[in-house]
């Protein structure tokens, strides 16, 4: 694709091309980053709108419908309102860390997109250690919460941060363990290779790619990963961080204006990222579910949308977990299940019934 863009740009720049050429690799990478992040940020802006609409219809309400047609301009109105509000810094707060907290929350959710493949070869950084990179980046996200909770100089924010951090650290472990099984069957740490490995097998040859994706043979791990993903993003039914009906708003209690909005954006950006990861690891990424339709990036977008809808559906359906039961589920149910399934899949792969050759 780079060659085509160059063909178009070189005559356009004319004699100025001599100036542009030394920095072209940098410019090209920046363009690619913008091409990936602009749709992500747009989706982050409109996801709260869809959440309110979907949950409203599930409650037999109408939802936002005042600003623009069908309330479509609601996110813009919300953003404008938050932008013009003052960012209040509490007395005796650690100011630099107080500002750094929300930034550290949002940044990891965006930089993780560097290794997400959208189509064959359509990826910003096609690195061999892609899964490790994702795990490392998602483990940094905790810092946004713990820093903002501590820097706020408020015991409510601090206790909220402790709860959120303990929950995220616990569920990261079961997510990593579920991924180990995926790595075993796809024999690679490269995300593109993991997607391609799902397009092989008996069912894929019969034109039913849908049944050869990882979700079917690794069904327990798919469930563990999806549920841990919901817990990792602190969404209902695991939203004890911000249980609207029982406690204050957790680590973000002292924040206002755009700093508060950043936490909100981080939550939705993380949701989209987790959905993309579920689609790539278990639902075949950009692969087409049936043989007669071509593979394309639209399949990936459709899969991400379905998982996102599940997130919203969970919120409208399930009552909130009690905190000790969240911890029990992570440590005493998911973790042993992952260990067991690693052994089961290991034995399966060594037996003559191995389906991942």
């Amino acid at each position, binding site marked *: 694709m780079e060659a085509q863009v160059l063909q178009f740009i070189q005559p356009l720049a004319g004699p100025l091309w001599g100036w542009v050429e030394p920095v072209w690799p940098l410019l090209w990478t920046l363009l690619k980053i913008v091409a990936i992040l602009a749709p992500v940020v747009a989706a982050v802006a409109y996801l709260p709108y869809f959440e309110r609409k979907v949950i409203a219809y599930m409650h037999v309400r109408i939802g936002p419908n005042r600003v623009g047609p069908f309330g479509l301009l609601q996110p813009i109105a919300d953003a404008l309102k938050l932008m013009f509000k003052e960012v209040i810094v509490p007395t005796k707060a*650690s100011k630099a860390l107080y500002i750094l907290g929300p930034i550290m929350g949002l940044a990891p959710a965006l930089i993780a997109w560097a290794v997400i493949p959208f189509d064959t070869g359509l990826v910003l950084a096609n690195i*061999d*250690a892609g899964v*490790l990179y994702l795990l*490392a980046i998602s483990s940094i996200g905790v810092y946004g919460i713990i820093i903002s909770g501590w820097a706020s100089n408020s015991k409510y924010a601090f206790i909220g941060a402790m709860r959120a*951090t303990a929950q995220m*650290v616990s569920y*990261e472990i079961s997510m990593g363990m579920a991924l180990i099984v995926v790595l075993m069957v796809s024999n690679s*740490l490269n995300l593109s290779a993991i997607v391609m490995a799902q397009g092989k097998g008996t069912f894929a040859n019969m034109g039913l790619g849908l049944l050869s994706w990882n979700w079917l043979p690794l069904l327990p791990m798919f469930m563990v990963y999806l549920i841990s993903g919901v817990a990792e993003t602190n969404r209902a039914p695991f939203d004890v961080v911000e249980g609207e009906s029982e406690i204050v708003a957790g680590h973000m209690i002292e924040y206002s204006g755009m700093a508060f909005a950043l936490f909100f954006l981080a939550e939705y950006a993380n949701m989209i990222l987790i959905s993309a990861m579920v689609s790539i690891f278990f639902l075949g990424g950009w692969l087409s579910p049936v043989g007669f339709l071509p593979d394309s990036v639209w399949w990936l977008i459709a899969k991400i949308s379905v998982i996102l809808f599940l997130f919203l559906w969970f919120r409208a359906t399930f009552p909130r977990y009690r905190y000790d039961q969240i911890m029990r589920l992570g440590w005493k149910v998911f973790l042993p299940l992952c260990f067991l399934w690693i052994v089961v899949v290991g034995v399966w792969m060594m037996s003559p019934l191995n389906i991942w050759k």
Partner: protein
Amino acid sequence: MEFKTFVFYLLATIMVLAALRVITARNPVHAALSLVLAFFNAAGIWLLLHAEFLAIALIMIYVGAVMVLFLFVVMMLDINIDRLRQGFWHYLPVGGLVGLLMVGEMSVVLGGNYFGLESIAPPDIPGGFSNTKMLGRLLFTDYVYPFELASIVLLVGIIAAVMLTLRSRKDTKAMHPSDQLKVQRKDRIRIVSMPVEKKEGGE
């Protein structure tokens, strides 16, 4: 100056400054966060050396797990800085000696003469070389027994840590979900049959 050299010096400068902040910061939380910054820059330098697995493992293990727990502890402790600094002059000779020893050892290693580092040519790395894959292959073939031994040592450490802190107290009212799930209807309610009472002056 080559671009890589520039990046190296940038990362190294930030790392040294962050390391200095770790020992000079008055607030222990700031010191721990400076240590996180130092880890990040160390990972960047390792990436420059084509050791991407080590770099990502450093971020994942030290930044993502160890330092988070460390921050947990530091934030919840009430640390009195003045009392920690009381014995400074008393401990200075011993600390200085250890510091000098470490500087001497590092200069022997980094000087390169002793180990003949100057005569070793930098490894020729082909384009599609995967550090992670090679490391995995070595760990699970040539070094599989030391690797498994190390994992057993870690497992023993985990079990020991759990056993040291595990104590079941009788006086807490902790709820156990497994007991709660096992509850049957007959454990909680008792149906008593009573004779029907007639209403006074009824129809």
